[in-house]
């Protein structure tokens, strides 16, 4: 024991100039805070005196990190990684600030940084020790991960005994051994249902993974082969990047490298500030979004059986000096569902979004983070005050909460005349087809379709959003080939079609969503579930545009498909074009056909020849639909983006068909019809004050669905500020209150309650 202690105390610190990492972390924070410049860098000596050398180092690092990702991803077996590109590598300073990142799921620039900071804070230098050749793993949500299926591999980089940085690699794995199969399973309501969580653990030494880790980790998940190859992908990429860094240090000298990594972050901060000044207009921008949590009838513990709604109001402040601030005051309480988020995941995710619009370049690093401020109420769904929270599909809330930020930015762009940059918002990136059991190879397996990486895009102020194209978490979206998905899933495609009426209507409509009809085939002990918005749209149109359509579910069990196929009778194929007049249901007999708005479900047994509809959402629209050009409506009709009755009711189009069934929009008649609609609108309209008076009465009488009341009650319980603002906006009596307790729903786990 004595020897060990002596060893520990005589151990040389691994930080720079004999410091500990903890000291370094504190120093950086202190310097950045007091000066307003990252690491106190008011000047960039290297960049200013040797700009070319600086750029050369940058391009070598950046190119190398991107290249490592491209090479390493070929090792993976999972289509999620290989085909959809759900992986990312980032290089960090010794303190865990990001320097440069590859393409891919760059939300993890922040989450892996959080893991490194966690290790520093918890004195990993002393125990378990941080040494050259070590490999660490993290996927713990409460340490800062988005959800457990994003598994991090983190490797320290040493040069002559000193830690000069870290490299992190992340992949979205297909299963983490949660309560049900699939990477983002539905059903977990606590951390303990979320699956295998590894909290910054040392899993390898001397560049070799430890045997106990390999054994334990593979016994903890359903899809061992994918797990294994994903891990090899991450380790291979991290090692390539470590070699790259050491190569640069050899070429440029370690002192130059140390200067460079500081300056590049400060440069990122300055660049972001300038970008804000160029593209935005100082002021406050407020917006809100909601999404449904229909848990009342789900097979979950009693305290979780609550129908409620996520509340995500935001106030974006663009300061005159270019500072960028987002205040989430008013978001409601975390809950017993899988959609809670951590502060790092919401802020990092915002950079994913910003890199698609405000800063689409290769200089994304922690500099932007130092140039912005986020206010994230404690105890809310994005900053829970309880370690028990579940996070397996945090994205349900995240993608919904980000959509209004597109509108905030778009109002800026519109005002500055950057009409092409306007984007009405992102689709709710669902449905998630997930499940598992014994697959077509008779192996224990989980599936997680990433067809959801290609959803409709929001409209701009000059053109329609593009259809089936991207996801908020991945602008380089792709739906992949059906033949590749059929390698991974025992689900035969019976259709892949553009889905009419899924795009938000508008002068420019959103991009359309699509749907794929799957027939279970070759599976055994198979379960699946749905995950997406059902009752509510999480986006909202912009400047008169409509939101995209919400979701629903279609599943059919115990069908007579086999017999119909034998008799060569028509069977359901293609899209469920008009769910109000369903075609599928006419073509089959089944023990059970489910069509409803319960778009979130837990495990359901599926037998072979059962059907599952995977519907991927559209994007929101821009501008008044009455301003849409008749020719564009005609094209929408003929190309299957729009059902005729909505061309009439929403767009005011007067539609006829020619002898071949082609739709024709009569321009003159349409113009007349639109005039009439405008008059009807005026007739229907009431002055805002009058409308508010009516609404006010409803509020006073608490005339709203229990979900709506629950949403507001849990917001009020967290924020007096929001409660007071709400009261004054609606001019409510002083003693008006709305509490969670009066609603008769469980308040299990509640801590903060300002409505007491």
């Amino acid at each position, binding site marked *: 024991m004595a020897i060990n202690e002596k060893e520990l105390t005589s151990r040389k610190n691994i930080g720079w100039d004999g410091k500990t990492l903890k000291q370094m972390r504190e120093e950086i924070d202190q310097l950045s805070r007091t000066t307003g410049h990252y690491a106190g860098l008011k000047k960039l000596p290297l960049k200013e005196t040797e700009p070319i050398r600086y750029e050369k180092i940058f391009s070598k690092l950046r*190119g190398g990190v991107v*290249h490592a990702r491209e090479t390493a991803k070929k090792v993976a077996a999972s289509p999620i990684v290989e085909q959809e590109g759900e992986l990312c590598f980032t290089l960090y300073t010794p303190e865990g600030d990001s320097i440069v990142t590859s393409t891919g799921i760059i939300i993890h620039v922040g989450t892996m940084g959080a893991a490194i900071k966690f290790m520093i804070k918890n004195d990993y230098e002393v125990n378990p020790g941080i040494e050259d050749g070590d490999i660490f793993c993290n996927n713990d949500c409460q340490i800062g991960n988005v959800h457990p299926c994003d598994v991090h591999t983190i490797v320290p980089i040493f040069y002559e005994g000193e830690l000069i940085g870290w490299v992190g690699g992340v992949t979205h794995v297909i299963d983490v051994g949660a309560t049900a199969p699939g990477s983002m399973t539905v059903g977990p309501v606590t951390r303990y249902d979320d699956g295998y969580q590894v909290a910054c653990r040392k899993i390898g030494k001397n560049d070799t993974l430890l045997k106990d880790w390999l054994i334990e980790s593979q016994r903890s998940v359903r899809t061992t082969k994918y797990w294994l190859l994903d891990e090899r992908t991450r380790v*291979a990429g991290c090692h390539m990047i470590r070699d790259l860094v050491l190569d640069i240090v050899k070429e440029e000298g370690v002192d130059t490298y140390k200067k460079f990594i500081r300056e590049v972050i400060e440069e*990122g901060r300055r660049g972001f500030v300038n970008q804000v000044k160029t593209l935005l207009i100082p002021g406050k921008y407020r917006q809100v979004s909601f999404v449904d949590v229909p848990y009342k009838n789900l097979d979950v513990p009693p305290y979780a059986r609550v129908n409620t709604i996520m509340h995500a109001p935001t106030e974006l402040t663009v300061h005159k000096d270019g500072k960028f601030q987002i205040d989430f005051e008013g978001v409601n309480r975390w809950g017993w569902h899988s959609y809670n988020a951590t502060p790092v995941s919401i802020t990092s995710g915002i950079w994913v979004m910003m890199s698609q619009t405000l800063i689409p370049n290769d200089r994304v690093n922690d500099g932007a983070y130092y140039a912005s401020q986020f206010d994230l109420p404690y105890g809310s769904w994005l900053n829970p005050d309880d370690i028990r929270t579940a996070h397996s599909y945090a994205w349900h809330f995240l993608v919904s909460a980000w959509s209004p930020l597109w509108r905030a930015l778009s109002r800026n762009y519109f005002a500055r005349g950057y009409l092409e940059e306007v*984007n009405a918002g992102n689709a709710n990136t669902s449905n998630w087809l997930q499940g598992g059991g014994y697959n077509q190879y008779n192996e224990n397996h989980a599936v997680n379709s990433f067809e959801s990486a290609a959803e409709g895009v929001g409209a701009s102020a000059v053109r329609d959003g593009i259809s089936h194209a991207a996801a908020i978490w991945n602008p380089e979206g792709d739906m992949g080939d059906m033949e590749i998905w059929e390698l991974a899933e025992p689900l035969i495609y019976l259709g*892949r079609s553009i889905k009419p009426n899924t795009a938000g209507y508008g002068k420019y409509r959103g991009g359309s969503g699509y749907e794929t009809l799957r027939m279970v085939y070759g599976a055994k002990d198979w379960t699946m579930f749905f995950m997406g918005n059902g009752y509510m749209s999480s986006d909202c149109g912009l400047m008169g545009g409509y939101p995209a359509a919400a979701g629903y579910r279609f599943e059919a069990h115990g069908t007579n498909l086999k017999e119909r196929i034998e008799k060569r009778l028509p069977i359901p194929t293609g899209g469920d074009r008009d769910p109000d007049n369903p075609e599928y249901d006419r073509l089959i007999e089944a023990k059970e056909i489910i069509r409803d708005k319960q778009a979130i479900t837990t495990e359901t047994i599926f037998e072979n020849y059962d059907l599952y509809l995977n519907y991927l959402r559209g994007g929101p629209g821009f501008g008044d639909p009455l301003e849409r050009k008749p020719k564009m409506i005609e094209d929408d009709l003929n190309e299957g983006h729009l059902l005729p009755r909505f061309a009439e009711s929403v767009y005011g189009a007067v539609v006829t068909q020619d002898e071949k069934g082609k739709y024709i929009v009569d321009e003159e008649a349409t113009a007349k019809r639109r005039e009439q609609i405008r008059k009807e609108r005026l007739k229907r309209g009431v002055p805002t004050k009058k409308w508010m008076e009516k609404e006010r009465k409803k509020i006073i009488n608490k005339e709203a669905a229990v979900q709506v009341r629950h949403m507001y009650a849990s917001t009020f319980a967290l924020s007096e500020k929001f409660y007071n603002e709400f009261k004054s906006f609606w001019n409510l009596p002083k003693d008006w209150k709305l509490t969670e307790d009066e609603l008769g729903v469980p308040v299990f786990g509640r801590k903060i309650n300002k409505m007491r």
Partner: protein
Amino acid sequence: MWHTQNLNEKVQEGDEEMKKAAKRNAQILAIDAGGTMTDTFIIDENGDFVVGKAQSTPEDESVGLLNSARDALAYWDTTVEEEFPKLLAGVYSGTAMLNRLVSRKGRRVGLIVNKGMEDFHRMGRAIQAYLGYSYSDRLHLNTHRYDPPLVPRELTRGVTERVDLFGNVVIPLYEHEVEPAVRELLEQDVEAIVISLLHSYKYPHHERKIRDIAKEVMKKVGKEVPVFASVDYYPVRKESHRTNTTIIEAYAADPSRETLIKINNMLKEHGANFDLRVMASHGGTISTRANELARTLVSGPIGGVIGAKYLGEQLGIRNIACSDIGGTSFDMALITQGDLSINTSPDMARLVLSLPLVAMDTVGAGAGSYVRIDPNFKSLTLGPDSAGSRVGVCYPEGGVETVTVTDCHVVLGLINPDNFLGGEVKLYPGRAYEAVKKQIADPLGLSVEDAAYGVIDLLESQLRNYLESMILGKGYSPSQYVCFSYGGGGPLHTAGYTKGLGFEDVLVPAWAAGFSAFGCGAADFEYRYDKTLDINVNDGAADDIKLKAGKELQAAWDELKEKVAAEFEKSQFSRKDVDFRLYFRMQYQGQLNDLEIEAPIEAFKDVNDWDELVNAFEDTYTRVYAKAAKSPELGYSITGAIVRGIVEVPKPKIPVEPLAGETPPQEAFLGKRNVYWKGEWIKADIWEMEKLKPGNKIAGFSIIESPATTFVVPIGFETYLDQHRIFHLKEI
């Protein structure tokens, strides 16, 4: 036109003795038919070549071609009638098909797919919304867009059918649905019909059944159009790739066949005794009668790679890193152990395809690339867009206002403003100087010269990184490769982008400008066919399983050999003339990326052969992905069989000239010029490339000029011209 004429004059001057000999023996004709100009390259028995140009004639390409050949032969004082009968071979490469595709001016094609999948082709793959984009535009969502589909939805029909990934019939073909589908398409006046069903590569019968029914229906209706079943062309996995490629076959390739036949006939009418061959994406040439003509869609850049491969074969160099800088891009490719790397799921014209394409990495950084300072991040950016033929600010007629890489060359004195592209284009250094000062130097706080030098330094360092990572990505190191540098802009930067990488040797052919055409003329007559397989063998499997797997692989090889042999038969080559080479694709079970490997065996005979295949795979795998990624415990999958068949065809000769001494002749010396290099103005020796003699050695700082290229030998470097007129660049 300007530079060709000049180039020819130079070639002529440097070749006085040959001229006196008067008699030429034209042997190889290479044609590059672009959208506006048709170039012909005619190579004689000594390896000398001449270039001709003429306006392209899209309505009948043979007219433009003939004019172009006349133009070329005029430099040799001879005629088409005189030389065509002497030609041993002719190779065509053109952009007509690509233009037809990109401008969506192909045939009206009808498409038959699985019922329910009628939308999949027009939906494309979302990746097609940003293919070919720069990094920042890939992120920048609002820039993404789809091109119109090749086949519109209204010309698509579905028939009920499904086969699973193993090739099991899940839903039999509803044959009664085929006839109405075909009739409807014919009624809509389609000019061709393409059939593509899911997993047809595993179970071809349904596609073929539809094909046969369609033909019967056509007979009945009395309206016959060609029918293309995807499995008859590209029996490989990934339906978007396979369907796109088969559609291109019907939409653009098949219509081009007529053009090629016309050209072939024209050549014959003028005395040619050979069958025209067409450059194909896999790096070989194929007959105009080949089944799969869509693979001739490719043109241009791969010519240089094939030229490098041929030159390597002649000089005994097995590993080559090819590099080519043009006006808009830097193209790289690797030849390893004498073989080109092939990408089997490439993209062209923003479409994912299933053609085997010579794998090339392209970076948007060339001589015409724009140079800018990002106003907000204050970082120096190069490209990805380019002034192309508009050169830069230094060329007023080009109307360019943004600094380009060429402007920096001019500031530094690296290129002669009065002799750019043979002197036909006059450049104004003063304009370049002012622009670099205002746009680059002042914002960076550097002198104009240092800024211009910095741009070139950054460009070369980026190119060096790309080149290095491409080689490392294949699991090799530059010391195992010889770097070839060609193209108009290549030799200017060769020293810069090879510096410190430790290549075994660095070669710059003096005839670099015509290298791509030389490559076309040097291409093998080669067919390559691929087939998707799914053969799984677990680690430590029993012998009978390995045997069964081997037999299945051998059966695929046999099938593909038949296909290749049948193609050669169309050109009257019998099976014994064909050199067959067998390849397989392998991966660990479950992976999605395989590796293409030449079979270490001639045929699969016994269990030992299985182990040979596995060893060959694992050798390559560990080289490419590091040892840690080796995963034998997962078992192995053979995912594809490939057969290449090659027959001997005449190829251009490499020039051989007698060695002169190390000292260059006085008449090659053009004088001295000021060049700014590493912070100071120095006097560079200027040499005329054509007048240098084999054996000559030239030390830095020297600039060796020819009308079409400029070769820079900086301080610390030395170059030697060998007897094949190839410069070897050495760091000393």
